[in-house]
């Protein structure tokens, strides 16, 4: 049995997305900037997609900018808000310690340009506190950027409350909703979100298209990619029409089925959590229920994450880990360290991320396999041996 349990990394492309994509390859293949009928057909396809996506977010179509994905949207959001802040002498940006690197590395860049970056703690449960945001906001705050849901541990942040607070304080609010879009409720008006990033391939569209939503009149966009006048001159490059059409169709489908999918997927998630926590010396990472419907993240003490992934892969299970060996650096995931895990424990992390395509049989296979693999790795682990002797 082959089980794909890495949906936080990327998802299978849905039939709905494929059906929307194919005509853009075969018939509507024109360049939307061209004035002939081929170009105009492509342009209509793109504007239709923009309207669909705007409706899903409760935004206006002109507030939607297409990008190559979540990272580009995050970069552009931060750099634009920073530029707008700088003009008003505001050089303070608030974010959190466990953001995606698309945010953290852009903030590093801004820090070198003289911005004061304040990364708020996310505590053991992986949730930022509203009062910390409130305390951090000052006269010179140019932006608050807090992710909607964390990509590794799945914890959901109090976005509506932070949005209301930022509105009251008159500070622009950006949220990286890459993991949330298509999976959690989003209404940019109700939630007072000024800027939002999302990525199509996290909700069953192909890789290579994303969206930056910016509320009209909030933050003027600064170009990250210079060139032609696409996207009202704010994002050059011929638009990825097949990707955009597929993303719109996939987001619409996900949003229409949001509650049903969440109920189905979170039931499987909870069954996995309850099963895996029977393994001795296992720790669930992040809040037990206030997390993405499909996210399960555990640490198993005494074993190392890459070994675990290799063994699971051989048993047909595709998962991910925040261990140093899988991150390609010396340190385990910054997300796991931000919730207070030691290096020792963080090395043994396992993320299983489900989708509505996951079946109960697949969950059974995971539940039957993980304990055996953990036991096998512990049998050859000197760390586990020392832990046992120390008891």
């Amino acid at each position, binding site marked *: 049995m082959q089980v794909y349990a890495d949906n936080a990394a990327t998802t299978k492309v849905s039939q709905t997305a494929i059906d929307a994509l194919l005509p853009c390859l075969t018939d509507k293949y024109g360049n939307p900037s061209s004035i002939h009928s081929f170009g105009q057909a492509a342009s209509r396809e793109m504007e239709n997609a923009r309207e669909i996506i705007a409706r899903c977010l409760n935004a206006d179509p002109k507030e939607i900018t297409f990008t190559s994905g979540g990272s580009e949207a995050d970069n552009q959001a931060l750099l634009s808000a920073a530029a707008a802040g700088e003009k008003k002498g505001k050089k303070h940006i608030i974010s959190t310690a466990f953001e995606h690197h698309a945010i953290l590395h852009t903030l590093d860049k801004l820090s070198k340009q003289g911005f004061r970056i304040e990364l708020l703690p996310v505590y053991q449960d992986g949730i930022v506190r509203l009062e910390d945001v409130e305390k951090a906001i000052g006269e010179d705050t140019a932006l608050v950027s807090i992710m909607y849901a964390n990509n590794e541990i799945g914890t959901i942040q109090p976005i509506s409350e932070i949005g209301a607070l930022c509105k009251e304080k008159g500070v622009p609010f950006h949220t990286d909703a890459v993991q949330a879009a298509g999976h959690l409720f989003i209404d940019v008006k109700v939630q007072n979100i000024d800027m939002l990033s999302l990525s199509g391939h996290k909700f069953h569209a192909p890789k290579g298209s994303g969206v930056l939503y910016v509320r009209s009149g909030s933050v003027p966009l600064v170009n990250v990619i210079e060139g032609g006048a696409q996207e009202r001159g704010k994002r050059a490059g011929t638009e990825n029409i097949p990707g955009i059409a597929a993303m719109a169709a996939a987001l619409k489908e996900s949003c229409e089925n949001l509650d049903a999918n969440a109920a189905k997927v979170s039931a499987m998630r909870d069954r996995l959590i309850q099963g895996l926590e029977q393994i001795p010396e296992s720790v669930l990472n992040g809040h037990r229920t206030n997390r993405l419907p499909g996210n399960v993240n555990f640490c198993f003490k005494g074993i190392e994450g*890459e070994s675990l992934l*290799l063994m699971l892969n051989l048993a047909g299970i595709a998962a991910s880990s925040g261990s140093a*060996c899988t991150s390609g650096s010396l340190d385990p995931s910054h997300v796991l360290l931000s919730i207070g895990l*030691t290096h*020792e424990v963080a*090395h043994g992390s396992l993320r299983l991320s489900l989708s509505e395509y996951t079946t109960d049989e697949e969950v059974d296979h995971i539940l039957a396999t993980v304990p055996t693999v953990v036991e096998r790795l512990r049998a*050859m*682990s000197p760390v586990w*041996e020392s832990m046992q002797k120390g008891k």
Partner: protein
Amino acid sequence: MAMNYSDLVIDHFTNPRNVGEIPDADGIGEVGNMKCGDIMRMYLKIKDDVVEDVKFKTFGCGAAVATSSMATELIKGKPLSEVIKLTNAAVVEALGGLPAIKVHCSVLAEEAVKAALYDYYTRKGLPLPEGIEAPCNGDCAHCCSH
């Protein structure tokens, strides 16, 4: 396969040779540390200057397990005069290569063997042969520099 490991590496990872402990070992070496994410413990049984038996336990990635396993195969039944010359390059070669970012794991395998030999010579009160020195102090930056 993940990380582009060769079939031989995967074989040594999934069916590691000589896993375990030797209760009455003549030399035990442990190298690596938890911060780095790789720890190897090597047990040697030595008779008449020959490695009569060897066992290991490893906490680490696929390459760490596979290099430990291969290192034990390379030294089992060998005279100490040969064992002290074990290099990480020989372990990597025997495995048919490792992905570039994983070569550092093979350094740990060599060091684990040498740490066990150090323990053996020290326990016996014998002079240390050239190339055998006290195991690393836990600063694993030199092993783990990617």
